[in-house]
């Protein structure tokens, strides 16, 4: 999942990745009264409300409030019970889940093991052609043991399975909806169309209406199974693509929450007296990738030199107004597998020059740097271009439209490129496997065309290893290898900036960008 | 002002301001329009015929201006009266038919609406009365089934019919004077014959005066009582019709008649007038016809002759007929002999 960079103005099309997030921060003394309509101004509209139907953030943030998953992750990135009360790993490849009883879908259908099977089978069904299949493709069998017990078998030992199940791609859809959807599919309709039109889950909000391109409205689920349901009566996700306008809407009180806020707007909002900006570290990575199959980028020295020539602090302060932290590796702090104990590449122009000289490239060369039409990435490109000029490297920037960009970087036609990667499962596997495993070249994520048997080996191990400590060690080793090989220059981890009206309490956003809306109250 | 003239034009001067300076399009035009008579104005293209008629109605283009002279209509000098008064006269007492029947009618209104307008504004009729009268007028000008045609748009009519509509329009308020500026030039001969008959007939019946502008001497011969011959913005000869055709005096008039190919008699060789009409920007200083005139003398080239009235009341602008004539007594102009006065 390429992170679109949530701060972009045109990310609607970028298939960024995300997971659920309901449990989250516990009800922080909500002084606000219950009820009211919470209005969020968001960058773009959801594309589908079928958990299996799309793979982008704007859809996820809505889905996460309608559907629930078997397991959840708390703010410390720990797996906690969701619709499954408990679970255990039966053997290397089999997991057994005990389900919560008495959970009802919004349409009154019962949640049980059969439903879990139906949902997972559906996502695996080639006819459904789910874009989220990759999350679950290692699952070979879902077995209903009893009404409330289900066994999941994977093809190979797969440690991050729980993390994947916490992704809201694993949101549970009402069996009636699934049946209706299949019926429509047989009648020629597109898969997911029924579910997306009328999403039915078990969450604390129910779907109310969707005016495409404009707004989605959810209402409180009065019959929520948990002890604490939603506080507000309804939530409206309103699409407001222009950031200035979002800010103005927030200030004039037309909306309660805006997402995202541009770094340069933070000060203005904080000074407005009616709202303030919420900062939250994100799990996503912005990177500058090299085509490691193409000269001169097949030489790690050149890659390291370039990586060293980039002043990450300058980027963060200049472009992100300091809302972000420099990246030392692919994983953001807080992600399972993150480590600081590596020999990270640091900004040093002299060393960069020396490295380039060592590579025999003291006179520099001409190359291109690709980016898509995301303003921040373009800005990074401009700064990189300037920095590399000092190494005598002449860089020509080419801005592409996102679709073209993905296609052509997947095809390996690039020299250097700027892209992002987000990590909705909070697991190192998600943050590294697709980016660096040689089996994942091109479209799946490895656009650097990086190939290192050692790394491949370690990544495969990391998946199979069930002991968390052992896994962490494996990923730390990978991180060091990546630093040395420098298949990409890790740039930064951005922060989620959301504008919140002073009337709103209890709002939070996950590291994956998912809004935590259950405990929100409005005080007007 | 003699009693039976409804209109007397005296030394009219009209000029236009253009890129290249001022252009005197009309420079010394005088003629009388006797009551109930038809006077013709002939002359070559660009000689100022249309500008003369537009000056009378004060309908010149924006860059045009009457610079001098008088236009006396029933005692009023039209060059001096207010615009409001002018509007009262236009279309009511003096009306006009234009050369181009195709473009002179407004394409977006029915002929009935266009005829009615003058009636409503001058005669205070209401729409209904005006329509009824319009039908009568169409009938008067010989349009078949006028009740139907009154609702027609101009494009639905042929050229001849449109010209009839124009005539009906100009007759709407029983004008004293009808100015017809080349009303048949755009039409075919057989249609022209229809229209000429119609105008003659109407004049006899309604007794109005007509100013008939044309460059076709045949038309003049058939329709007019008096003729003003214009050359380069001036009237060079004004006389009754028979005198002009039988005993033309001005060399230009003689030349004009000579150079006319005729279908009723055989001519061996045409006798053209040499040279070209002078451009309005470079008018000769003396007589404007002098550069082309076979009888021109130094006097002609140096000094412009005045318009002189002879015993029979005809007018002529030529030195030959003045006391100052320096040349021979018998002047040969295009093979015809004229007796000079001096």
């Amino acid at each position, binding site marked *: *999942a390429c992170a679109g960079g949530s701060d972009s103005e*045109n990310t*609607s*099309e970028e*298939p960024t990745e995300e997971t659920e997030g309901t449990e989250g921060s516990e009800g922080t003394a909500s002084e606000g009264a219950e009820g009211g309509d919470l209005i969020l101004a968001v960058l773009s509209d959801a594309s589908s409300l079928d958990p299996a*139907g*799309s*793979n982008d953030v704007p859809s996820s943030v809505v889905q996460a409030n309608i559907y629930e998953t078997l397991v959840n992750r708390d703010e410390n990135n720990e797996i906690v019970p969701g619709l499954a009360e408990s679970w255990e790993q039966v053997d290397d490849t089999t997991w057994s889940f005990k389900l919560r009883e008495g959970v009802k879908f919004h349409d009154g259908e019962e949640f049980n093991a059969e439903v879990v099977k139906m949902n997972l089978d559906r996502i695996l069904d*080639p006819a459904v*052609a789910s*874009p*989220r299949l*990759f999350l679950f*493709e290692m699952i070979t069998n879902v077995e209903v043991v009893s009404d409330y017990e289900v066994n999941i078998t994977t093809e190979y030992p797969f440690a991050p399975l729980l993390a994947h199940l916490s992704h809201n791609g694993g949101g549970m859809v009402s069996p009636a909806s699934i049946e209706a959807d299949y019926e429509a599919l047989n009648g020629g*309709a*597109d898969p*997911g*169309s029924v579910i*997306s039109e009328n999403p039915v889950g078990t969450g604390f909000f129910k779907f109310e209406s969707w*005016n*495409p391109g*404009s707004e989605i409205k959810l209402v409180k689920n009065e019959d929520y199974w948990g002890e604490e349901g939603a506080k507000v009566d309804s939530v409206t996700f309103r*699409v*407001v*693509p*222009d950031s*200035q*306008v979002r800010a*103005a*809407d927030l200030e004039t009180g037309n909306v309660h929450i805006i997402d995202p806020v541009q770094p340069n707007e933070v000060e203005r909002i904080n000074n407005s007296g009616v709202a303030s900006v919420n900062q939250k570290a994100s799990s996503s990575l912005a990177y500058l990738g090299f085509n490691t199959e193409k000269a001169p980028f097949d030489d790690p020295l050149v890659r390291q030199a370039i990586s060293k020539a980039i002043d990450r602090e300058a980027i963060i302060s200049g472009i992100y107004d300091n809302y972000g932290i420099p990246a030392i590796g692919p994983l953001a702090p807080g992600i399972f597998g993150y480590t600081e104990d590596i020999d990270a590449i640091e900004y040093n122009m002299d060393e960069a020059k020396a490295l380039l000289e060592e590579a025999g490239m003291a006179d520099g060369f001409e190359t291109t740097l690709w980016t898509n039409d995301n303003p921040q990435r373009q800005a990074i490109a401009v700064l990189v271009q300037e920095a590399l000029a000092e190494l005598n490297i002449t860089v020509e920037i080419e801005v592409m*439209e996102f*679709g*073209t960009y*993905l*296609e052509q970087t997947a095809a390996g036609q690039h020299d250097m490129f700027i892209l992002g990667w987000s990590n909705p499962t909070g697991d190192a596997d998600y943050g590294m496997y*697709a980016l660096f495993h040689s089996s*994942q070249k091109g*479209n*799946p994520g490895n656009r650097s065309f990086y190939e290192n048997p050692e790394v491949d080996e370690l990544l495969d191990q990391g998946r199979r290893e069930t002991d968390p400590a052992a896994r962490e060690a494996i990923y730390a080793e990978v991180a060091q290898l990546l630093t040395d090989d420098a298949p990409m220059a890790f740039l930064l981890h951005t922060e989620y900036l959301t504008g919140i009206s002073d009337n709103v309490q209890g709002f939070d956003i996950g590291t994956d960008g998912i809004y935590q809306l259950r405990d929100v109250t409005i005080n007007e | 002002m003699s009693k039976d003239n409804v209109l007397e034009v005296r030394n009219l001067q009209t000029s236009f301001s253009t890129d290249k300076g001022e252009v005197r399009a009309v420079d010394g035009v005088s003629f009388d329009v006797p009551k109930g008579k038809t006077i013709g104005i002939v002359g070559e293209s660009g000689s100022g015929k249309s500008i003369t008629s537009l000056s009378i109605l004060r*309908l010149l283009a924006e860059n045009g201006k009457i610079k001098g002279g008088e236009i006396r209509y029933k005692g009023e000098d039209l060059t001096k009266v207010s615009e409001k008064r*002018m*509007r*009262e*006269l*236009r*279309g*009511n007492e003096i*009306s006009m038919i*234009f050369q181009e029947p195709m*473009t*002179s009618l*407004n*394409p*977006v209104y029915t002929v009935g609406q266009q005829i009615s*307008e003058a009636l409503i*504004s001058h005669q205070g009729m209401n729409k209904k009365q005006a329509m009824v009268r319009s039908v009568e007028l169409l009938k008067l000008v010989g349009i078949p089934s006028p009740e139907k045609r009154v609702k027609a*748009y101009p*494009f639905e009519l042929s050229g001849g019919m449109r010209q009839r509509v*124009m005539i009906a329009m*100009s007759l709407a308020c029983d004008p004293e004077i009808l100015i017809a500026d080349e009303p048949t030039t755009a039409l075919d001969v057989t249609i022209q014959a229809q229209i000429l008959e119609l105008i003659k007939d109407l004049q006899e019946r309604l007794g109005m005066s007509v100013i008939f502008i044309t460059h076709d001497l045949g038309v003049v011969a058939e329709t007019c009582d008096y003729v003003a011959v214009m050359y380069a913005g001036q009237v060079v000869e004004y006389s009754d019709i028979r005198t002009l055709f039988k005993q033309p005096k001005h060399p230009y008039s003689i030349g004009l008649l000579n150079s006319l190919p005729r279908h009723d008699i055989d001519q061996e060789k045409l006798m053209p007038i040499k040279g070209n009409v002078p451009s309005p920007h470079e008018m000769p200083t003396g007589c404007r016809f002098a550069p082309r005139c076979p009888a021109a003398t130094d006097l002609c080239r140096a000094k412009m002759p005045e318009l002189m009235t002879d015993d029979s009341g005809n007018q002529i602008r030529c030195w030959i007929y003045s006391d100052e004539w320096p040349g021979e007594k018998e002047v040969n102009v295009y093979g015809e002999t004229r007796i000079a006065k001096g």
Partner: protein
Amino acid sequence: MTKYIIRRLLQTIPVLIGVTILVFSLMHLVPGDAAKIIAGEGASDQTVENIRERLGLNDPLYVQYGTFVGNAVQGDLGSSIRSGRPVMDEIGARFWVTFELAFYSTIVAVFLGLIAGIISAVRHYTLTDVTVMIIALFGLSMPNFWFGLLLIQWFAIGNWMPESLEFLKMRPSGWGDDWRQVVLPVLTLGTGGAAIIARMTRSSMLEVIGQDYIRTARAKGLTERIVVYRHALKNALIPVVTVVGLEFGGFLGGAVLTETIFAINGMGRLTIDAIRTRDFPMVQGTVLVISVLFVVVNLLVDVSYRYLNKRIDLN
């Protein structure tokens, strides 16, 4: 008349076929694979292949085109690749927004443009005329996205507005639930159109005033008022109507920038987003709908010619 309209409608068929071929081939020339976009990152080749098969993307192009046209004729424009919803529904949700925007903007443009144009023509070559025309030229030369931004800065963000005028603040974005949202985008689009209409009206009026039939009208002794407003204006309006029609058509398809600036959820933005996400059916659908509208508007213009000027022979 009915016959004429039917014939004209039939004549638009080749044009629409051309438009569909053009948009179809353009979309298939664009690099970027719809199936991959749907499949998302990390999808296996098999998944992509499944999707390609499902969408019929493996058929030869002419078959795909045939299917598209065949369905379109029955009013089925297929389903959006991005949302899976029928394209007709997606368009339906935005159509009226764009239509209203275009409609109000046209009204503003016609109203301002006609007044300015007539004043200018009647007072031609005076100071008034020059002033009005300079303003119009300015309006014409102003990129409307920039003008829109200025308006937002003034009236919505308000950071250039003196505090005493704060009551003038407008809602900056969206469309519909508050009349104050409508004002700025309509002004943005409408003023540019007004400039064009003003110039057209002026030159058309001046041209008409030089016509023979105006002289005829004056020769009838009519007052200048009647001459100008009854005889000249109606004729002068004919070319103006064409411009108005084109403007309206242009507003329908070309409000992209205005829609972007004011965050209006209209057809223009829908199309741009669709182009960007390689949502072929959506692009084809929107372009087809906009083109049909454009063609229909042109037809209406021609019919109104007939009303204004009976001379124009529709056959």
